[in-house]
């Protein structure tokens, strides 16, 4: 009997703890959701119960977002920035990751760690000189400044990620291809690349999400509404004077968050095997 009570207590506390974590993490998002669907009178009334609707839910914030703000433009900007950065990143990180994975000597190790460390150089240090460089290139206040600057962290990150994956690939297949008549580079293109599509896909997804999550450079380089990427736009642009358009802000935040959340969930396992492969030797 005592055993049963102890067991039940343990189960209850276990699920209680799980519930605690779920509420802790999910509540702000629930809050986002419900705020975006509440009508303004409902929202700005302190006497109303905030957890559910007191008046009918409405889509007016979403409509406002798309019709009266530059939200759609921001989405487009982020899409373009993301795609361009992905292309630049892959072009640099794929060969670099492969080369570093196959280089076994001291230089290979040193370069690998060097790449890892570059990812750690903070944007809040580099943004000052970069803003001067961007200005001198005539890219100030343009989203293309971000396309130029984002690869500075996506390339190191992807190189590191891909390095981990490539290291785990057996060398035999490349060697067989070389013996069969491929050049070294040919072996890379015909054997390694087709066989690492999952890894490449993971790198693409994470690069894209990294560009969506970035805030500091966007804030520094871009001030005009039309050029803002989605995250910057939602966080800073939906204010008129002192008035925050909370309904719209939450609606925008929700829409901007969903693709990233989905992507992370789908690719988390791949990402983990990538970082543990590269990090824990």
């Amino acid at each position: 009997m005592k055993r049963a009570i102890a067991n039940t207590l343990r189960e209850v506390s276990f699920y209680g703890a799980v519930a605690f974590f779920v509420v802790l993490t999910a509540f702000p998002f629930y809050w986002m959701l419900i705020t975006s669907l509440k009508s303004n009178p409902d929202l700005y009334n302190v006497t109303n119960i905030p957890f559910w609707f007191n008046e009918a839910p409405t889509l007016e914030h979403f409509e406002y977002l798309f019709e009266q703000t530059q939200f759609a433009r921001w989405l487009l900007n982020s899409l373009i920035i993301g795609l361009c950065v992905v292309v630049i990143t892959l072009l640099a990180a794929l060969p670099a990751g492969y080369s570093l994975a196959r280089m076994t000597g001291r230089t290979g190790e040193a370069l690998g760690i060097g790449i890892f460390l570059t990812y750690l150089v903070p944007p809040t240090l580099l943004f000052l000189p970069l803003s001067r460089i961007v200005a001198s290139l005539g890219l100030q206040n343009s989203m293309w400044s971000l396309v130029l600057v984002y690869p500075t962290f996506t390339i190191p990150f992807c190189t590191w990620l891909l390095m981990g994956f490539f290291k785990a690939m057996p060398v035999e297949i490349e060697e067989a291809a070389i013996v069969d008549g491929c050049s070294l580079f040919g072996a890379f293109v015909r054997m390694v690349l087709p066989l690492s599509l999952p890894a490449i896909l993971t790198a693409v997804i994470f690069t894209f999400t990294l560009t969506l999550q970035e805030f500091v450079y966007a804030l520094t380089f871009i001030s005009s509404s039309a050029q803002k990427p989605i995250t910057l736009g939602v966080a800073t642009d939906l204010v008129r004077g002192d008035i925050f358009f909370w309904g719209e802000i939450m609606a925008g935040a929700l829409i901007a968050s969903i693709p990233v959340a989905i992507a992370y969930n789908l690719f988390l396992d791949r990402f983990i095997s990538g970082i543990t492969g590269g990090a824990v030797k």
Partner: protein
Amino acid sequence: MAAVLTRNITKTFNDVAAVNGITLTVPDGEFMVLLGPSGCGKTTFLRIICGLERQTSGDLLIDGNVVNDMPPRARGVAMMFQSYGLYPHYTVRNNIAFPLRTQRVPRAEIEKKVAWAAQLLGIERLLERRPRQLSGGERQRVALARALVREPTALLLDEPLSNLDAKLRASARQEIKLFQQRVGTTTIYVTHDQVEAMGMGDRIAVIDHGKVRQVGTPAEIYDEPADRFVATFVGTPPMNLLSRGGAHLGFRPENFLPKDMIDDGNGGVAEFSFRVDRSEYLGSERIVYGVVEGFDAQVITAKLPPAHVAEDSIRPGEWHPFAVRNGALRYFDQDGKRTSRH
């Protein structure tokens, strides 16, 4: 003309010589086995011949041409790897066709050659499958077909049987050897398994610590070992060695028999008093472990045919008269090298 000729090939990694000066000649059509323990440098040496590693010094000639600086594809060699290295994203047909595609052979010619190679190895019906759908034996045949489709000057095999379980190994051995005899390609085969080496090689090069200890036919390696290493590496159980002041006296277990079993013949016998400690009955033979009088520190083995041995001649704990024909004794000096009777 030799198909493959190496002159004093050396390869050092970080001041350690993995290959320490190997000069070897492999004539056309020969099945040469590179035999040695793990880490002796045999695989490194094979990879140098293949072109996957570059030697630190020394020359390599294939079909009369110096190939020191040429990549594998220019050397006319083909290699079969330990795990076969089949291309997982290609069908069997495309696996076999790949070496021809890289040489830009015209398509009609490729079709013909692939069909020929597939028929040679009996894998025609597997052509549209993918490697992951094949059994171990089938994969091996595909790997062989891919290696041979270019009709290479030399076929290099890197321990291809070590991933197979024991039962498959024997039949795979058979296949490879028969196959090579039929096709006649010069073959260099690396293994640490001396049974494989003895069973398959026309000649064996025994390698240790990057140097060739002896090159010879299986019979030469077994009966006339050049030094102590070769003597004890080949043969199961290994040759017995009695040490006497730095030098060694050796005899193989199957030559170490109860005195009254030995046919004196001509030349006489050397007699030993042998105390049996333990015997293992293996069905086809009996292995007996014990010590020889005067050499208490060394365990000596005798390999006896069970049918013909009287029980009381090998009772444990007792001393029995054993002997070896003088012709079967081998002498080794302080450096381990083989000498004639001192």
